[in-house]
């Protein structure tokens, strides 16, 4: 018996992770509605990378596509993890902010437009340092302005994950969708090991990394909403559901008291066990990501 007969659904699925940033974005739209804005042929690239001998890219690693998802207006902003680690530079950040602001303007004038952010990023692009950091502050602000009118849905599929300042963008989103392969956190393991030492975090311990940053854990403790299999159709269907649902009545990043109380109750005399945190914090069902 072949592998395909043993596990037909898994083998025959169309992987989302294996798609590049542009193909991921395109795959989400209703047929014939997708239109890329400020695409690679417009050649808007980083003005800062060539000054440092780094080859820029004609879309700066940020793909913006407008169209319809499940019949409703939406814009998808996708970060290409293969270009500079999906990092946010001046241009990629400005593209994202501009797309969010235009969606807000349309939403305010009656045409509610959801935003879907496909985040594969290590955060600030250090070659553009302060302009990257400033751009992330603006992205956060623009997400907050849009989500009052229409949902902002972040998808972290893998394999780069979502780290650094852009993890705050995920944090202020209306909904966060992750796969088991995806990771979400402010500081990546290497950064913690470098700053605080190997005793604090052993960046070579992959089981530890996924136990803390992995999609199953984030959904399990209620810091992300849905764990979805690495399957383009299932991810699209989850996004459609959230576009239809509209913004939640209260966003996760508005639940100050709940989270402050949770932190106050933590025993910090030793490291925190991720699994017991799931039980204590009553997160979401994680069966969706099971194969």
């Amino acid at each position: 018996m072949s592998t395909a007969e043993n596990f037909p659904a898994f083998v025959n699925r169309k992987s989302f992770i294996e798609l590049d940033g542009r193909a991921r974005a395109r795959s989400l739209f209703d047929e014939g509605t997708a239109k890329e804005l400020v695409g690679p042929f417009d050649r808007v690239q980083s003005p800062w990378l060539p000054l440092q001998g780094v080859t820029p890219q004609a879309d700066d690693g940020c793909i913006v596509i407008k169209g319809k998802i499940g019949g409703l207006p939406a814009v998808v902003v996708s970060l290409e993890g293969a270009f500079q680690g999906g990092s946010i530079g001046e241009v990629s950040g400005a593209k994202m902010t501009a797309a969010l602001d235009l969606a807000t303007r349309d939403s305010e004038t009656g045409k509610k437009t959801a935003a879907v952010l496909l985040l594969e990023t290590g955060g600030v692009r250090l070659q553009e340092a302060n302009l990257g950091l400033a751009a992330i502050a603006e992205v956060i602000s623009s997400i907050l302005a849009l989500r009052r009118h229409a949902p902002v849905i972040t998808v972290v599929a893998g394999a780069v994950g979502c780290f650094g300042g852009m993890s705050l963008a995920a944090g202020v989103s209306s909904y966060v969708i992750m796969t088991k392969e995806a990771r979400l956190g402010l500081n990546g393991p290497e950064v913690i090991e470098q700053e605080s030492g190997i005793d604090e975090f052993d960046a070579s311990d992959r089981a530890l990394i996924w136990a803390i940053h992995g999609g199953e854990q984030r959904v399990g403790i209620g810091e992300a909403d849905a764990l979805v299999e690495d399957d383009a159709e299932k991810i699209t269907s989850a996004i459609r559901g959230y576009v239809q649902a509209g913004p939640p009545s209260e966003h996760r990043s508005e639940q100050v008291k709940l989270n402050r109380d949770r932190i106050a109750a933590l025993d910090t005399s030793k490291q925190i066990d991720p699994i017991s945190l799931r039980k204590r914090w009553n997160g979401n069902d994680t069966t969706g990501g099971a194969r």
Partner: protein
Amino acid sequence: MSEHVGLRGRAWFQTLTGKNEPLAGDPGSVLASNSLLGNETSLFLCVVPNTESRFPCVRDGQVGLEEAYTLATRVREVMVKDRDKPKPEKRPIIAIVDVKSQAYGRREETAGIFLAAATSADAYASARMAGHPVISLVAGHAFSGGFLTHGYQANRILAFDDAGVVIHAMHKEAAARITRRSVAELERLGHEIAPMSYDVKDYAKLGLLYKLLHVENPLQPTASEVEIVKQGLIEAVQDARSGLTDLSNRLESDAAKQTRKASIAVRAMLEAQWRKS
């Protein structure tokens, strides 16, 4: 860096509010006070080092879980209090910034410091959008996730102009390692490429600042220097009230028109194509 991160923050919080203690129930690392700025009650907030913190990775003045949720609590508290006031009467929120970075710890990652940071940024930005003038005074260090959590959602940012002020995405040694350069090369590039510079005068060229202020010795300001800083904050409050509640002003200064040309061009192009689609 000869002086310790956080000393300036505490010194200016004390100078501007006359207080030096956290509010009841808050961790020792967050100072908050509703105090007069000119003739108007304003909420002052500052993150300071707390060597006794029960979270080991914040003890040098990093912004961690407790800091972020406490800031969010205090900001949202005044939003509720001022909810029914008209916009011109909503109280100013002044973030005094002198933070080393976000906390780099396993406890923090496990419990979701990304969400804590987002919650604080959300509170500051929501206050701004509700009409509170949110003003940042960068008195010392403003690094990375620490600044995103505390201060970078302000609609006006002021900073001191001396070498003790550093606004950046990552400290030199780490940035050099990640971009595979030597610290010397990084410093050289910083002189040529404004966004990479660690010098606040180069940061000012990005057009993100409302104003640079000069204080001879920020740890021991003279009475007249304190007056100048207060006046600067009051003007920033008035300016914030006269403008929009988003961050669009950061692209409108003369400096931004020069340095952030690409941002402005991208926005115009995207808008034109958006209309046609």
